[in-house]
Structure formats: structure tokens, C-alpha cells
């Protein structure tokens, strides 16, 4: 039996309190974006919003952020699904794989990014291994994976960082619902491949969706990862927000509030998508 009661007002009010700081931030940023608050306040004006909307570098930075976060999320999801499906047994190899996949879970983003600089840089560990193998002869022969425009280092690092969380969720989904449904399918005559295609993968798809949305949100929102691994052109959205916000030029600082407002609105939209996928997954369970 689960906890249920009829009154919803206290719960809704408390949830509102949790969200209040973000709402305050949204309100302040909105006021500052139209010149009514903040250090650059000069009275009602749409000049900051207009300038940001016309600034192609902002949109290229936002597009880069979405592209890199989407690719990293896709890679992490694929790896997590492979581990969850491929290592479901009780043998030592299966257990070792599951444990190893979960170890990076508590590693903070800043450590993942710092480690990536040391491993993926042009004089980093991978470049040294390539030199030892005779593949390259000097650091410039190694492809730039850090601060690079395609964001390969960023994508690989955050894909690796998020595999544990997604693996944990995928393993949980399969452990609670997978075996029963798969056994039913097999009993009805489905082949292993058909069971995988028609039962396991769809089940994982719906069960993993909320976590996948969260991972995308987290990667897209990381400041430290983008600052240490992202390119300077286009500048990732989080770094652009901070740089404009910190600028000595008050005009630019006003633009920073527009970016803050945009970031929080995108966060709101992402949370709506998350809750939609979570509600679908919850219905699947009940």
C-alpha cells in the first residue's frame, strides 16, 4: 500500500517553495533583461534582448551545446543498454562489468573534465601511447580532442561520466520488469532475437527515457565541463552566459541576464519533457 491522501494543497505549496529560488532568478533575470533591474538598468528597453537575438555567436554556442549534449547522451545510453543487456547474469564477468560500470558514478563533473584534459590533451596519456606505438612523432600529430570545435573530448568525457547512472537505471528496469515479460514472450514462442527486439529494447526505451532526458539536461547545463573542454568558437552556452555576466562592460552584463533568462526557460522546457517521460514510465509500472 502506498501513501496517499486527498489534500493536495500542502504538497503543491511545498513544491512551489522548492522551485521558488529558480522563479526568483527567472523574475530578476527577466527584469534585468528589459533594463528594469541589475547593474545595467537604464529603464524599460528591449535593447539587450534585441542584441542577443541578433547575435549569431550566441545561437551557434547554443546549437553546439545541444549537439554535444545530445551526442554524449546517445553514446552513454547505448553503452548503458549494452552493459545492462549483455551482463545480466550472475557470473563473475557479469558482476565485474556491472560494478566497473557503476564506479565513476560519484565522480564530480569537474574531476571528469580535469581528468580528460590530462588524458586527451595533445601531450596527454593517449598521445603518449600513440607516440610509443609509433603512430605519431610529436604532440601536434595527435588530433586535438580538448577545446576542439567538434567537441570530441567533451562528448567522450561526459558520455563516460553518465554511463553509470544510465546503467543503474537500465539494470533496475530489466531486473524489475524485464525478466517476467521476456519469459512470457519466450513461453509464447518468441526467439531470443525477437524477444530482445520486441520486448527488452522497448521496455528499456520507455523505462530509460526520463533518465536519458535528465542526463541530456545535466550535460547541456555543465559549466565546468564546457569551460575546461569546450571550444572557444563557438562558445558553449554556459560559458557564454558566465562570461557576459562577469563582463566589466555593463552593456554586456545586461546581455548576460538575457542568456540567464534563456537558460532558465530552456530548463523549464526540459523539466516539462522530463516529467512527461517520467509519467509515462510511471504508468508502465502501475
Amino acid at each position: 500500500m502506498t501513501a496517499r491522501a486527498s489534500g493536495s494543497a500542502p504538497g503543491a505549496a511545498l513544491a512551489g517553495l522548492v522551485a521558488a529560488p529558480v522563479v526568483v532568478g527567472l523574475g530578476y533575470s527577466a527584469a534585468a533583461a528589459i533594463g528594469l533591474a541589475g547593474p545595467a538598468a537604464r529603464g524599460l528597453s528591449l535593447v539587450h534582448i534585441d542584441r542577443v537575438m541578433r547575435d549569431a555567436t550566441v545561437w551557434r554556442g547554443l546549437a553546439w551545446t545541444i549537439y554535444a549534449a545530445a551526442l554524449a547522451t546517445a553514446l552513454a545510453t547505448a553503452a548503458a543498454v549494452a552493459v545492462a543487456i549483455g551482463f545480466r547474469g550472475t557470473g563473475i564477468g557479469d558482476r565485474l562489468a556491472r560494478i566497473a560500470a557503476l564506479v565513476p558514478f560519484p565522480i564530480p563533473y569537474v574531476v571528469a573534465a580535469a581528468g580528460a584534459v590530462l588524458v586527451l590533451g595533445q601531450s596527454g596519456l593517449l598521445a603518449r601511447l600513440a607516440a610509443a606505438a609509433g603512430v605519431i612523432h610529436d604532440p601536434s600529430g595527435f588530433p586535438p580532442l580538448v577545446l576542439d570545435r567538434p567537441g570530441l573530448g567533451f562528448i567522450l568525457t561526459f558520455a563516460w561520466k553518465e554511463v553509470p547512472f544510465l546503467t543503474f537505471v537500465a539494470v533496475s528496469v530489466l531486473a524489475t520488469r524485464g525478466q517476467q515479460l521476456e519469459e512470457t514472450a519466450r513461453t509464447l514462442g518468441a526467439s531470443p532475437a525477437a524477444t530482445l527486439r520486441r520486448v527488452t529494447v522497448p521496455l528499456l526505451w520507455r523505462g530509460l527515457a526520463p533518465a536519458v532526458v535528465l542526463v541530456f539536461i545535466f550535460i547541456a547545463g555543465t559549466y565546468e565541463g564546457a569551460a575546461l573542454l569546450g571550444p572557444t568558437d563557438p562558445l558553449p552556452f554556459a560559458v557564454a552566459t558566465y562570461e557576459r555576466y562577469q563582463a566589466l562592460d555593463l552593456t554586456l552584463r545586461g546581455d548576460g541576464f538575457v542568456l540567464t533568462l534563456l537558460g532558465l526557460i530552456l530548463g523549464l522546457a526540459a523539466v516539462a519533457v522530463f516529467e512527461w517521460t517520467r509519467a509515462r514510465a510511471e504508468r508502465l509500472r502501475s
Partner: protein
Amino acid sequence: MTHAPVPGRTTAAPIPVATGASPGWRGVRLAMVTLLVISAVGPPALLAMLSASQSWFYPALLPTGWTADAWSAVVRRGPLARAVGTSVVLGLTTGVVGCVLAAPIGRALARLHGAARHVAVAAAVLPAAAPPIAVATGLQLTFVRAQLAGTPVGVVLAHLVPAVGVLSFFFFAVFTAYDTRLDDEARSLGASPRQVWLRVTLPTLRPQLGAGVGLGFLVSWGQVPLTLVIGGGRVHTLPLEVMGYVQAGETRFAAAAALLLILLPIVLLLVASARLVRGSAPASAPAPASAPAPASAPASAPTRVSA
């Protein structure tokens, strides 16, 4: 619904793709296990080596000289040691205060139905999911007005913003799965709601509360944007030291600080896992971090440790 068994077919194989166990598949599995183990053990090992390397010039595969100066800086209570202390205090405060605030919120959320449930859950998750840098820049001037910017108290309050979001969702999952029969029994024996909360519900959920404190600690422990903006350079935490050392090219100190940032969370994870495994009594179905949880709230608790 029941199904008639197909003649000649025994029980289903639990691993549909592995039933063949061909040499090729075994090779793929071996490669995957190797890669996973390297990706788990490699980073801490590399950081440990880097933190003690005096000289490690390209293209040497291993350091050519060793030094303990980064670690002696930690022991001598230099900036790095102070940053560790600050991070631990901020993390513990965030974890404990976050749980005190979020546990009743999570319980209230779990009691909601229909649209109110969806809106409230989304509202609770918002601070954890909104871009941290946007939350920080959106709040900074409010903190400045309240004279909290640049102070440890201000930084704790800032860390509590995403932490309470994460923990509210965590406790929402815990209370969604919580079996209320013990509470009902206590009520029927005459206990007041306050007594039930303090003497039945909270003691029953002790392992989950411990995990919650750990989760709140982790949110603060890896936090960069909120500390950077709200702390205004006056509150030095371990993640900021890592950022600073990496950007200054101080590899040895960056590695030592990063290793310190890794070790404590891993110890916490192991302790929490062990406690949760021991504490999963039937009366309190444990939620997120403890056991397999399906396609719903428990399994998808937002866990960005650097949120």
C-alpha cells in the same frame, strides 16, 4: 493473464542476446569488461601517479621523477587543505539541512494525484535540472542585497537550491514506495501525526535518510557554478581549486585535488550501498539508490553530483 507453455520449450533464457555464447560474443564481452575495468580503475590510478610526479614530460609513458609536495601541501594545511575542510563542512551542512527540508516535501509530493502530482514533481525537480550557471547568475544580486554573497552561509544556501530539488525528488521516490501500514498501526494505537513521523516513519527510513544526506553532500561536494558566482572568489572549495589548478597548468596539484574529490564520494557510495543493503527491511520498501527500481520515479532520481 496466463499463457500455455509451448511444447518442447523450457523456461526463458534471462539473457536473450547471450544464449549462443559464441567465441565472437565471448570476445566482445571480454573486450567490454576490460574497457569497463580500465575506465573505472584508470582515472584514479592516473591521478594518483600525476599527483606524485615531479617530471613527466612528453613522450614518457611514466613519470621520470617523484615528489610528495602536492600531498605535503595538503598535510601542511595549505590552501588545498583549507579547501578540503570548507568543502566537507559545506557538503555535510547541505546534506543534513537538505534532508530536513526535503523529506517532508517528498512525502507531500508522494500523496498527490493527477495533474497536481505532475506539476508539483516538475516544480520540485526544476532547481536540480535548471542550468546551474543560470540559477547562480539569476540569484547572485539577490544574495548580494541580502549580504550573503561571498560568505559560507550564502554558499550553503546556494548549494541548497539544487540539493533540495534533488532530495525532494529522492524522498518523493522513497515515499511513493513506502508502505504505510506501520504508520497506520501506530495511529490506530493512539499516536499523534507528529509522534508517527518522529517515532515510526523516520526511524523506519533511517537507511534512506543516510543515503539522502550522502546525496545532498555529493551535490555540494562537486558544485562549481554556484560556488563560483555566489562565493565570488572568497569561498574556496575543492572543485574550484581543481578548476584553478587545471587552468593554471599546475598538473600535480590539480591531480591531487581531483583525487581528493574522487575518494570521499567513492567511500560514501560504498558505505551507503552497504547500509542500504543491510537496511532494506520489508516494512519500508527502499527507493532510489538501494535496489532495482523500475521505469519510474525511483530509478530516475536526478543525481548530478555536480549540479
